[in-house]
């Protein structure tokens, strides 16, 4: 029963997981591993989730933390860690990349060049999270979120102008 609920939660939030994986891992094979790792971490903590935080806050925290750790350890070193056979838990839909418009492609390129923490911040912002929620997920103040968003906006504007 718990597994069924978990599957339903994952189904409702698969977009979020997909976007985080795509932003932190450019290599498709590593991306598969990251997806697995995120699912495992979510499952490990699923029974402990007590509803004190919002469900989306919990998913973002775990997915982003896993992605940052994975990015620092595995993606950069190209050294696989997940030992489970990828075919067992590969999510077929996740392999499909919808036709992306030019802006999204450029946006992903821009995100790729950001550091680990700025990647997390811009993803949360683009997903239309409120500053308060972004602050809660990342563990910084709302003022700090606003400052960073402004800084990233300037860099982004400059980059899009140059392109």
């Amino acid at each position, binding site marked *: 029963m718990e*597994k*069924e609920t978990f*599957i339903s939660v*994952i*189904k409702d939030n*698969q*977009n979020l997981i*997909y*976007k985080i994986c795509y932003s932190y891992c450019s290599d498709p094979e590593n991306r598969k591993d990251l997806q697995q790792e995120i*699912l*495992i*971490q979510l*499952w*490990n*903590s699923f029974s*402990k989730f007590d509803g004190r935080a919002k469900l989306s806050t*919990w998913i973002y*925290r775990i997915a982003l*933390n896993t992605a*940052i750790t994975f990015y*620092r350890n595995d993606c950069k070193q190209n050294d696989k860690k997940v*030992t*489970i056979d990828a075919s*067992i*838990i*590969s*999510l*077929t*839909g*996740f392999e*499909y990349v*919808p*036709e992306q*418009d030019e*802006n*999204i492609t450029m*946006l992903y390129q821009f995100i790729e060049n950001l*550091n*680990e*923490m*700025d990647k*997390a911040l811009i993803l949360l*912002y*683009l*997903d*239309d999270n409120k500053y308060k929620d972004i602050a*809660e*997920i*990342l*563990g*910084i103040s709302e*003022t*700090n979120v606003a*400052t960073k968003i402004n*800084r*990233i*906006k300037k860099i*982004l*504007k400059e980059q*899009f102008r140059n392109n």
Partner: protein
Amino acid sequence: MELEELKSAWAQYDKKLTKNLKLNEELLRKMNLGKSKKEMNTPQIYEFISFITSFIFLLYSIIATITHSNELKFLIPGIISCLMTIALIYLSGLKIKLLTEIDFYFSPVIELQRSMNTFKQKSLEYKKYEFYIFPVFAISTFPILEIALCHFDIYKHPTQFIIGVILSLILGYSLANWGYKNLFDKKVKNTIKFLDELSKFENEQI
């Protein structure tokens, strides 16, 4: 293009994803998630095993040292060996303490990254002590273990013992220096750099 416009393009993209992404529920259902929990606990398990093994070894060393305490040639290395083992247990205990303080599942991103990377930095630094302790540990432990386990008195073969000590010191410290520099030094620097980035990220103000 403004970030607000991109945000709207991103929302459109999200809708496309909703249409096209498909979760393979059957595979996810079959996935042995419970088993994979074990994979994630490796550092904790490793540290606990290390702690328990060192503790058992300490008890054995104490008993062996007390048994041969009437001979100074065994008493002194025995005491040194016990002290070194206590140092290793202490380092292991510090690592376990750091690990138990980490809330892997419900901490905000910055807090968890800081805790994990502090643990990593400390672990790597403790490795350095372990590397440097090891040659002296081996030299001091050898006589007491040999007499306790095999009733073999290494001091009756002074040439072998002196060669062993010299080789242990030269090779041990050369390897410790080389190993730490090549295996851990870069990782420590990267970890410190990332911790510094986290601190800057956390404190950035207008």
